């Protein structure tokens, strides 16, 4: 009998995990919605008609209208693009910084390790939300600034993870063999060790997307994230707060969308982790 490859093993474990599969379906659907946003929107998301302001959900407007008479469903659909973009760009930045610093610290050890890990300790002392808020307000809120700042303030976990992986992998025989053959440090780091440390990075990146989406929505809700008239789930909720006594639909749907999205990425992340190594399973 042929031996099962790790790849097959991974897929078999992943497919049979109901939560992981539902997580991936949610994430795939979100990709579809974001990609097809202009075709799915029943109305122009920016079309203002105050005659129809603050209508509760009805046949024409399935999720009602906002204070300017814009169709909430159309704005929600367009808003999915923002969440997707923020999630991926912010996590991309955090993963690149985290992986590089973690690799350096774990590979070289000694003062490089001490310096980098001290820096990590210092960054971890800041209530992250304070730091993000301060930087965003200084830099002028914009979608790009949000993505950069979330990325630049959330790499510390990845660094610790990658460092730990490097510490254990660098002692293995194949690394010694590569060294003995005279491979340069960079070659060993990127071609020999990093490929073997990728799985925890994937897991942490998937969970990171969820966290970044939550942070963006909170910032937009506070009015320092995505700026109107661009719709984001967070800033539709701001309108919900302003009309809290009369328009529940402005508060309910965007929050639900955030909840489901974050849930999807979390399930997917945990599913990947369990499929890579069942021993790591959080029981």
């Amino acid at each position: 009998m042929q031996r099962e490859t790790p790849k097959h093993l991974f897929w078999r474990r992943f497919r049979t995990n109901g939560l992981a599969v539902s997580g991936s379906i949610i994430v795939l659907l979100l990709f579809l919605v974001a990609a097809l946003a202009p075709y799915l929107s029943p109305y122009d998301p920016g079309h203002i008609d105050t005659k129809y302001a603050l209508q509760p959900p009805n046949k024409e407007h399935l999720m009602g209208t906002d204070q300017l008479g814009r169709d909430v469903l159309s704005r929600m659909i367009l808003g999915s693009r923002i969440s997707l973009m923020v999630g991926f760009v912010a996590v991309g930045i955090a993963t690149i910084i985290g992986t590089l610093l973690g690799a350096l610290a774990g590979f070289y050890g000694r003062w490089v390790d001490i310096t980098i890990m001290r820096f990590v300790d210092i960054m971890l002392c800041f209530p992250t939300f304070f730091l993000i808020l301060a930087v965003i307000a200084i830099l002028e809120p914009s979608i790009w600034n949000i993505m950069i700042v979330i990325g630049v303030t959330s790499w510390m976990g990845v660094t610790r993870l990658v460092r730990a992986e490097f510490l254990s992998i660098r002692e293995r025989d194949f690394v010694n063999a590569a060294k003995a053959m005279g491979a340069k440090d960079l070659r060993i780091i990127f071609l020999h060790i990093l490929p073997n440390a990728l799985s925890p990075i994937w897991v942490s990146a998937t969970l990171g997307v969820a966290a970044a989406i939550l942070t963006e929505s909170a910032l937009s809700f506070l009015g320092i994230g995505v700026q109107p008239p661009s719709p984001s789930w967070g800033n539709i909720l701001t309108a919900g707060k302003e009309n809290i006594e009369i328009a529940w639909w402005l508060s309910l749907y965007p929050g639900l969308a955030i909840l489901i999205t974050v849930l999807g990425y979390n399930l997917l992340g945990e599913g990947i982790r369990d499929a890579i190594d069942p021993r790591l399973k959080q029981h």
Partner: protein
Amino acid sequence: MSYYLFKRLVSMIPLLLGITIISFIVIHLAPGAPTGLQTDLNPKITAEARARLEAIYGLDKPLHIQYYLWLKRLAVLDLGNSFSTDRRPVMDKILERVPITVLINTLSLLLIIMIAIPIGVISASYQDSFFDKFTTVFVFIGFAIPTFWLALLLMIFFGANLGWLPISGIKSLNYEYLSPFAMVMDRVKHLILPIFVSSFGGLAGLSRYTRSNMLEVIRQDYIMTARSKGLRERAVIFKHGLRNALLPIITILGLSVPGLIGGSVIFETIFAIPGMGQLFYISVMARDYPVVMGVLVIGAVLTLLGNLVADVSYALVDPRIKVA
């Protein structure tokens, strides 16, 4: 013990310095000037007047001199004066707002500990039971729910629809005229929603963590020993199991402090609670640099203290760590 404490305190000094440097650099790399708000609103202001304003604030000096001067004042707990119209010392402005923030965060932390640990222990003891599955769903939702949305929903439901609980501030308008008992009740009513909201995410996290730790511990040999010598299940779970599972939980609690403090910006802004988070939000919007820096530094110091408390309690609980 006092030597251990001393050593821990000394090791905090480089961290503190790093914290001040990062806050300082972040805030001073800004392209906008704090004088911008005053001058932009007044088109008649001359370049000369603008420069004078900058000189008053010390913004005309080189960055490292500004940092040195700021650090020197910080050493005597002087964080400078606020840029806002009241010009009050930053330290006073922050200190008068620390108690309510610390009160709410401490109460949330207590609530989290009191509810999450029993939930985790019960889920682990009855793995795969209905209770266990139910709490697992609750945990996933707890991780994914945006706290500010939860706050909005609760405000709509308990505040606007039912009218049971007030949705903003920490006391009623007629607070001064209430009887002492009514005063206490008034405070409690105002605090219920904020405390519930700020503890919700932590509840999910800690109960999940307690559960997986307990599951880990229950498999150990000494648990089997305890069972086989005929101890009651309750004694096995709580005396032999929980005590060992608690150790890493203490560390996690210490690490959750910055999250709690950071979250206070959100719920204090939503519920209009005059705490540190709200002050921070207001100052960030007004580019009140001295206050922003003060809150950043004090927030980080509170985090350091939280970690210190966690480390010390860890050392006290775990006899394997020698503190002498």
